[in-house]
């Protein structure tokens, strides 16, 4: 049941996108998000849709996985669509009570929906093809210039990768403790709010204890291997751009150009 939580939901297949440098993918996602806000007519979104389709195809991740990410924003999507639909001024189509639906509203709502869906799917492509570790590696390197102004980039990246690494461990641990307490007759589903909160105690206490135990163990293991921060630390797999990354950057440039052009159609 609890396995369905998907953060850092890497999908392990081999594709051009999986092999790509994380920095390229990070930058690409950013370009894509910017482009979604630049586009303001059907043509722009058509180009964005085309790119997304090609990229999903290249990633070899089943489309169902991308769509799964949309479930999380369904509520947000509904709210923003209805706000745009009912609260935009313009030429009226029909009205129900005080709610007016206008042509402009329909247009805005449709664009808003498309924008949100593409945004989530676009970033899903990145998280599905990049392991959390690669991602933090990419972030650390991309933001490396901030070190000059004394931002502890390495430490922050390390914290992030440890946190990410701990999510599946804690999920598994929760699953295990939950089952162990269920084997002792625990019931996590029925009862009112207070009853439910109370039934969480046998789950949360062991979980906290195990989280602290793991944290001390990890700190000890890191010290035993002489970890002392980022200073002078080298990488086993340093990030290096390959030809496909340069190709990708060229594609971004062309894509942005086309998006800007569609604004004048």
């Amino acid at each position, binding site marked *: 049941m609890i396995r369905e939580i998907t953060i850092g939901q890497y999908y392990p297949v081999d594709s051009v996108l999986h092999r790509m440098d994380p920095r390229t993918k990070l930058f690409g996602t950013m370009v894509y998000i910017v482009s979604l806000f630049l586009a303001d007519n059907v043509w722009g979104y058509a180009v964005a849709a085309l790119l997304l389709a090609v990229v999903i195809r290249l990633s070899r991740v089943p489309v169902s996985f991308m769509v799964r990410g949309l479930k999380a924003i369904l509520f947000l999507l509904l709210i923003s669509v209805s706000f745009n639909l009912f609260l935009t001024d313009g030429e009226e189509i029909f009205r129900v009570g005080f709610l007016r639906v206008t042509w402009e509203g329909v247009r805005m709502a449709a664009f808003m929906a498309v924008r949100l869906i593409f945004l989530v799917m676009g970033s899903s492509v990145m998280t599905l093809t990049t392991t959390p570790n690669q991602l933090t590696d990419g972030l650390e390197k991309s933001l490396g210039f901030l070190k000059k102004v004394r931002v502890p980039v390495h430490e922050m990246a390390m914290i992030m990768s440890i946190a990410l690494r701990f999510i599946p461990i804690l999920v598994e641990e929760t699953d295990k403790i939950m089952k162990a307490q269920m*084997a002792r007759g625990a019931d996590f589903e029925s009862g009112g709010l207070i009853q439910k909160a109370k039934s969480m105690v046998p789950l949360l206490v*062991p979980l906290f204890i195990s989280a602290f135990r793991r944290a001390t163990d990890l700190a000890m293991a890191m010290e035993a291997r002489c970890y002392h921060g980022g200073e002078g630390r080298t990488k086993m797999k340093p990030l290096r751009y390959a030809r496909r990354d340069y190709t990708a950057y060229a594609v971004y440039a062309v894509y942005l150009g086309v998006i800007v052009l569609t604004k004048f159609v």
Partner: protein
Amino acid sequence: MAIRVEDLTFIYNEGTALEQRALDGVSFEIPDGQFVGLIGHTGSGKSTLIQHLNGLVKPTGGKIYYNGEDIYSEGYSLRQLRSKVGLVFQYPEHQLFEVDVISDVCYGPRNLGLPEDEVRQRAEDALRLVGMKEKYWEQSPFELSGGQKRRVAIAGVLAMNPEVLILDEPTAGLDPKGRDEILDQVEKLHNARGMTIILVSHSMEDMARYAERLLVMNHGKKAFDGTPREIFRHYKELEQMGLAAPQVTYVVHALRERGVDIDEDITTVEEARDALLEVLQRA
């Protein structure tokens, strides 16, 4: 006919690239009061299998019957089942959470909705059963030693008065003394109360010593099913599955190769000692 498993199949993450077949068409029957050992290399499906036996996991395919009733049929109370089939997880001390030992053991029977005095009674019985002295009862479980914590956790399951007790590597990480004590207590439960025991362990010596019957799992399938003597005869196949026979079995086989006339089915040190004494007396 206490537990019957029919063609049990379980697949993790079905329909994705992460798909993994943990159990593949497993069938067996465990009669009341049997002491069954379950062995298999890491990832062979043992833990998944035992979680099915008290309804914690829903199978992808196949059926499980407890006393003739399908446990996944509509309206069957899984909570009732869990009070009859007790499951002690690996490192069960990680599930302790209460302020003192006795309250933690009370958690299970209280969940069954029993009156408070019976809850207390059961908890005290269970603690005595695992050999926890009264002076520890009011202590925090987190102040106890590893072996004691584990006993408290096992008592937490025993306090539910199960008919079947399943233990997943109850001796992992314990010192030899703690290990023998726990297993002797389990055997006592089996002998005195006729409790059905299913024991998962990697120690072939323990299996030879305690189990009446062995189930061997390999890649999600049942590989062997029989008495320890029968199973350990296949020690070469067991080795290919990442398992082994008890060390003394190897000694016996080596002796036979050198021409000593000794029973090849010996699995415990005591048996080997008696057989060797006999051989020496004959000579």
